[in-house]
């Protein structure tokens, strides 16, 4: 089915959840041709430079600005827990190459799961069918870009074995149930995947990477006096098994259980415009929807984003700086190299209130005459890359948390979110609050739940009036950002901040609780 043109974020499997951490720094540095990621495709599949040159020449045999190859071998495995048993295992193997020919902003794309020369040449011919000119020359040799290493792995790492996951899930089950007798059902899952990629471009870039991914979650149902509530919590990202320590297991179990129980006291807030305070961490989905998607340069080069004419303009108060970053350690959107071979970078979208840069892939960077920002991402080899976010966050301000909440007066406080969406051209966005609190007379009061919050991106940015100095990043691994039918893992972060006015989709007109 053809995807409708929407941009959405959907977090894992359920409502509610989230995980927070102070912003990790940048560590490590490596050359992409060093071990362990240097020559996997050569060793396993015989993909050498000569073959890559031949395929690229075919892709440009009818002309074009450039072509690239994207080889992918991904192995995924999920173990599921239900009714006290780790009783289901699902796996997937994805192998293939995507071949792209680019001319201006036009794309020819072919892909194949069959890594024989004949099939790959046929896919290259499909990509080449975009053009009808004389052949374009390809580079005589390849060089490998220098990149950071934002998810270091043990030597020889080959994924997290199913055997290791089983006791972890058993512990999740036990810890959730032992949290409270009100917990009546626990499900859990441990997803892991290991993605190996090789990128070769007609202008002579070759990059190879190993990207781990996955998450551990629990979802619980609590019951009190016949009423049931549900909560979900996950931690993960590009990490090996050493991340899933007892502390992490405890955090997942206790957060999912306590959040479900908290909901017994939750009400649904009033409806209408009111001040909204975003707590720190996963609430950064606000930035993802309200500004991040609108700053993706493909929309802007087509003039279809509300931000298309705003570069260099003041869009927010001077304390507002918003960054999209591939270089955070072990966050879901971290990238050593993007899916076009550009090394991971940090891109400042808003600096001291001024809109500074879009996020680019190679096509948009050429359109604007700037360097690619390393945001060319794709779901898999069956899809071509587009400008996509990585880890998007706002730097902290200098207010205290208490002052931010007090300044809100009467409104709501958002603790956890499950999903969001934006309409790029209008700038209108929404995100779904699974956990929060009412703010009454400057103080946090009753818990709230299940409410959609809406706003307009540029208006919202201008309405961020305070921020505390407590930036936290989401450590969840289950979140997927969707764009034109392609999902990629992302993360985000936010300090506690006040948005002067957003529309809260409550159930009663203002003036009363429901």
């Amino acid at each position, binding site marked *: 089915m053809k995807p409708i043109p929407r941009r959405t974020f959907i977090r894992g499997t359920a409502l509610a959840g989230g995980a927070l951490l102070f912003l990790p720094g940048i560590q490590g540095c490596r050359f992409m041709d060093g071990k362990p990621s240097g020559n996997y495709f050569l060793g396993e599949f015989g993909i050498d430079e000569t073959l890559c040159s031949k395929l690229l020449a075919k892709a440009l045999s009818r002309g074009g600005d450039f072509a690239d190859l994207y080889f992918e071998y991904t192995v995924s495995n999920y173990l599921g827990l239900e009714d006290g048993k780790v009783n289901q295992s699902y796996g997937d193997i994805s192998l293939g190459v995507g071949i792209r020919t680019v001319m201006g902003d036009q794309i020819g794309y072919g892909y194949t799961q069959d890594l024989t020369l004949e099939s790959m040449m046929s896919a290259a011919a499909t990509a080449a069918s975009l053009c009808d000119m004389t052949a374009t020359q390809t580079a005589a040799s390849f060089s490998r870009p220098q990149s950071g290493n934002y998810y270091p792995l043990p030597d020889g790492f080959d994924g997290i074995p199913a055997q290791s996951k089983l006791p972890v899930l058993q512990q999740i089950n036990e810890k959730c149930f032992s949290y409270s007798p009100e917990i009546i059902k626990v499900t859990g899952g441990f997803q892991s995947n290991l993605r190996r990629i090789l990128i070769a471009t007609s202008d002579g870039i070759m990059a190879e990477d190993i990207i781990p991914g996955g998450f551990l979650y629990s979802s619980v149902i609590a019951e009190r006096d016949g009423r049931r509530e*549900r909560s979900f919590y996950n931690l993960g990202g590009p990490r090996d098994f050493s991340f899933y320590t007892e502390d992490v297991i405890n955090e997942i179990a206790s957060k999912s259980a306590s959040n479900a129980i908290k909901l017994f006291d939750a009400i649904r807030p009033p409806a209408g415009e009111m001040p909204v305070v975003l707590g720190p961490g996963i609430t950064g989905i606000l930035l993802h929807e309200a500004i991040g998607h609108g700053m993706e340069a493909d929309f802007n080069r087509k003039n*279809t984003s509300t931000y298309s004419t705003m570069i260099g303009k003041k869009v927010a108060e001077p304390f507002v700086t918003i960054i999209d970053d591939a270089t955070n350690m072990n966050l879901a959107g971290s990238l050593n190299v993007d899916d076009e071979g550009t090394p991971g970078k940090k891109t400042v979208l808003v600096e001291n209130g001024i809109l500074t840069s879009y996020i680019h892939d190679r096509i948009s960077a050429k359109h604007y005459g700037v360097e690619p920002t390393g945001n060319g991402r794709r779901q898999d080899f069956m899809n071509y890359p587009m400008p996509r976010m990585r880890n998007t966050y706002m730097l902290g301000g200098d207010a205290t948390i208490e002052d931010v909440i007090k300044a809100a007066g009467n409104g709501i406080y958002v603790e956890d979110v499950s999903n969001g969406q934006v309409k790029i051209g*209008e700038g209108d966005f929404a995100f*779904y609050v699974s956990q929060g609190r009412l703010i009454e007379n400057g103080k946090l009061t009753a818990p709230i739940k299940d409410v959609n919050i809406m706003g307009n991106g540029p208006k919202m940015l201008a309405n961020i009036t305070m921020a505390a100095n407590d930036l936290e990043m989401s450590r969840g691994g289950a979140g997927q950002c969707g764009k034109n039918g392609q999902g990629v893992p992302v993360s985000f972060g936010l300090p506690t901040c006040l948005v002067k006015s957003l529309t809260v989709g409550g159930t009663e007109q203002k003036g009363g609780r429901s």
Partner: protein
Amino acid sequence: MTKATGKQMSFPELADWVISRTLKAGANDCKVSLSRRRAVEINYRDRKPEVIKEATTQGLYLEVFVNNRYAGQSTPDFRTKTLETFITDLVANAGIMEEDPFRTLPEPKYYEGRSQADLQLVDPDYGSLTPEERHSMTKAVENACLSNGGDRVISVEAGEYDESYEEYVKTSNGLEGSSRGTYCNVGASMTAQDEGDRRPAGYNYVGCRYKSDLPPMEEVGAEAARRTLDLMGGKKIATTKIPVILENRGAGRVLNGLVGPMSAGNIQQKRSFLAEKKGMPIGSRFLTVLDDPLIPRGLGSRLYDSDGFPALKRTLISEGVLNEFLVDWYYSRKLGWEPSSGSLSNVIIPPGTRSTGEIIRDLKRCIVVTDYIGGNSNSTTGDFSVGIIGKLYEKGEFVMNVAEMNIADNHMNFWNRLVEVANDPWIYSQSRFPSLVIDDVVVAGI
């Protein structure tokens, strides 16, 4: 995959080979599903191709049962050498799972009774669809959208997507099934200049099994332009309690929150607010929901479901009363219930008699919801909240476009206020819903 002779195996031959190897590797039972899909996608922008994409994919999904231990895995690699390792590894993987007595293949008696109807899922003209025709269809949609969009147009993207697929399934205990199908989708999205920096984008995409069932390309493009121009000047109004009409094509965004909790999995896992409601009213008498897998050319039509159960038409909700749950094999065993089918095919709400125009004329004031933004629905409690975009009418007359507004309620209240069903089912979807009229909805705005 190839046999020793080098000849490519057919799907039935490959399935037999995989089943034989899997049982030899130590599984008690297994199920193998095979698929192959050819897809073509063309997109135009600014009167030139923006994307041309084409490929064939294949997949093998193997599920193994080893003494009530279960694992499943997919692979695109059909070579015998790699499949042998794949099978051995999967059986070993199942062996480390915890025992679950409910994890079995269905009893073979439940496979019986399959309809032999011709569902007409394959367009006989599909093979003659040429690249030139695809380009021509896309250009026609783009032209119509551009010419109807007028001076407001900032950008138009038009697209054509089509695919043909074949699937085959076989189990070690007697299920065998195969299906083939085609699908063709065309449409356009348009971005237009509104006040200030607002650039609303609207779209219209329609898909059918048969290309000949598509509306004229000019109509498809013109409708995309009309829907975009309908977004101009969209603003929120004061929070109000008002009748809303959920337009046919998008009504599933809200209704899915009612249907999802009808699954046996949600019920057994105690995350369904409908668990205790079978035989009870959950909506007004205007709410009837059917699941009909046997509609010729239906996008969700099938002869058997994912468990291999024969497809049967069923009434899920009858005049507001919850009649039937969606019960698959695994959760039927856990619940001790008879299985039906755990998945939906074509979901139907029988149409009413009046058009939305007639209904709007009779309502003093109402909002027609044409699109949604964000939102979610809590299957455990029935609470939902979703952003809406739409049009405000008073005394039958259009007043203004509304945006950035929201509706929130609980499904157990919301569907009781369904007061009328229009006569306009949206046929380009598995969910063939007409427009639905709900009374007294709190629409949050200013």
